[in-house]
């Protein structure tokens, strides 16, 4: 592994431009896709958080404007570092149009207003997926050398086959919810995923989220992530979506706020995105007590689905402890 220390927190806009150039070069055959992940870790320092943007983020996802930075907001703060790894010329998958499959976050303590942080990101688990190729982006955040936050995001490049992929990526298996096929969030048609239909029996809804047509733009404004698939129907269609879709981290942030509103220092959560939440739209949401596999950790299970949909938009879990689901 090589360590690359970035001079500053990268700007997402520049990374998206880089991605567009990469896509053009790829299409023109000027750049042949790499077959393996770059053996590199990107480091960048960030913070302190912009208070006004933090407050806007908190209000958008229904959270009180506390001095503790929401764990989902930490994702948005460190996301440019992970994105800079994916925007590298030697990254084997095209960044544009990648679909967010899942997130897990383990937070030992909250980042606080006024604190600076260091973040490191790298890619691993380049894996064949039935709809393409998936990859894990791991991001770690620390304050003065103290690790406080680890996030793992799994992305899917649809229709891309790489020679260097290792074992098949383990299918997301959110505990207790049926229909856990690894769905491609951005597929145009529900039929693209064999075996997922008819398996989902909606639970009793306990909440309802109205997602306005400007949800994607509002989230972009507070997260800095202006990915076109979230902004408008025309910009989303350019990248193969039916309509604009809600940002996965926006849904995750609302899920965490609903389940653990008091925002404890220690919090862990995971979410699998099974079908896109189209904008505008309404999601039925079920919040239920549950436990982690093995029964050792009590947690809140959250499922969100569009009424009448064949599978959930997302399934997730939240617990007020720092527990890594990968190492129970």
């Amino acid at each position, binding site marked *: 592994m090589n360590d690359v220390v970035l001079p500053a927190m990268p700007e997402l806009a520049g990374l998206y431009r880089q991605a567009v150039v990469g896509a053009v070069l790829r299409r023109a055959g000027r750049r042949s896709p790499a077959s393996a992940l770059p053996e590199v870790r990107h480091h960048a320092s960030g913070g302190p958080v912009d*208070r006004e943007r933090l407050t806007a983020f908190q209000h958008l996802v229904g959270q009180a*404007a506390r*001095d503790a930075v929401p764990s989902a907001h930490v994702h948005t703060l460190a996301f440019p570092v992970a994105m800079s790894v994916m925007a590298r010329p030697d990254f084997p998958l095209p960044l544009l149009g990648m679909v967010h499959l899942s997130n897990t976050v383990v937070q030992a303590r909250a980042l606080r*207003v006024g604190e600076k942080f260091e973040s490191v990101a790298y890619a691993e688990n380049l894996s064949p997926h039935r709809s393409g190729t998936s990859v894990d982006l791991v991001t770690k955040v620390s304050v003065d050398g103290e690790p406080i936050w680890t996030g793992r995001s799994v992305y899917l490049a649809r229709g891309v086959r790489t020679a260097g992929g290792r074992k098949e990526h383990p299918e997301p298996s959110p505990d207790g919810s049926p229909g856990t096929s690894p769905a491609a969030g951005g597929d145009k048609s529900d039929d693209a995923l064999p075996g997922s239909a008819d398996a989902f029996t909606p639970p009793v809804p306990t909440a309802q989220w109205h997602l306005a047509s400007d949800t994607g733009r509002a989230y972009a404004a507070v997260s800095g992530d202006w990915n076109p698939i979230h902004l408008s129907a025309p910009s989303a269609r350019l990248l193969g979506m039916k309509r604009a879709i809600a940002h996965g981290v926006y849904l995750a942030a609302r899920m965490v706020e609903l389940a653990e509103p*008091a925002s*404890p220092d220690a919090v862990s959560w995971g979410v699998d995105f099974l079908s896109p939440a189209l904008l505008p739209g309404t999601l039925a949401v079920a919040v239920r007590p549950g436990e982690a596999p093995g029964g050792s950790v009590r947690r809140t299970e959250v499922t969100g689905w569009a009424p009448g949909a064949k599978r959930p938009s997302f399934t997730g879990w939240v617990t007020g402890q720092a527990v890594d689901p990968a190492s129970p």
Partner: protein
Amino acid sequence: MSNQPGAGAGTTTVRNAVVIGGNRIPFARSGGAYAQSSNKDMLIAALDGLVARFGLQGERVGQVAAGAVLKHSRDFNLTREAVLGSALSASTPAYDLQQACATGLETVVGLANKIKLGQIDSGIAGGVDSASDAPIVVSEGLRRVLLDLSRARTPKQKLAAVSRLRPRDLAPNAPTTGEPRTGLSMGEHQALTTAAWGITREAQDELAFSSHANLAAAYERGFFEDLMTPYRGLTRDANLRADTSLEKLAKLKPVFGAGLDTAATMTAGNSTPLTDGAAVVLLGSEDYARANNLPMLANVVDAEAAAVDFVNGQEGLLMAPVYAMPRLLQRNGLHFDDFDFFEIHEAFASTVLSSIAAWESEKFCRTRLGLDGALGKIDRSKLNVNGSSLAAGHPFAATGGRIVASLAKALAEKGSGRGLISVCAAGGQGVVAILEAR
């Protein structure tokens, strides 16, 4: 102390309600550090600190009572929503209360009474206000049109509703400090009282100076360390001017009372600024405090509310506490001399000075209060010893919680004695209360 003569006299056998502690966020000037924070945000921030300080995570508290004066209609359940967003157990009930600037003190009185009667064992009282994030209301004309529009069924009806809209209807209405019945601002009302009692500019500036000096000294000795949680970068009240002087205060231009025959004396220095903030107080029975190994700072002894007819010019808008005071003292068999601390809310310096002058006036006390003579003198060295609203700022509903927590701590530090609280409020109302050391 429950057998002490006077304590809780007027009521049948009740148990003590004690102040366990308090927490507030530093008060910010309007448009300052909390400009983006809502009432709910700030109330949760104050609750968060209280919960952390007293280990209330996941606990069911008997009841939470709080309120805000400038309140958006979407915050109809402000306090309950704040509880749901806090680390308190979601099974903690809550209610909103609104009594203008007496909101915070009235929540303390209400919950203390429930504790005394055994209805609850613990409670959190408080308040919050944001002058920055104030609700803005559409004009009455636009409101009527929108309501008619929502009821309209046919395009013709809809057109008829919209056609009544006039350009002037598009101007929004921001809340003001004007009294609904008189149209006069609170400052202009107080200017009438100030003139009637002949309160001088110098006396007002001296009181303002003392407020800043006392608050600065309280910070210096760490008095607020267990009464406050920093928020959004603020660690001290943003309005505090530790380096102010009588000379600086004397240079400020009067802002109220310019139209009166007498010289205008009320300035931005001796009037409270618009402020954002929140304050909460943890109350409990003695058994609750002991069972949870919590401190007991002071007893909430008794309280009295009063109101005056200011509309007909019979009395000053902010003079109601003057009337409540003798009733409270008589019921408890106490005199000013029996108190070691006086917390008279500094809405304006001249409000405090007018009240003190009224209690010292034999004529006023005989004719207006129905007493045999003057109620008494207040030892100024015991007045607002840790600063008050002129220095700290005055987020309307948060002031009661600030005062109760600070006074209870001062009494606990002293280890004996009593404290008297006086808070004036819009609408010609006021609440006074007695705390007692344990």
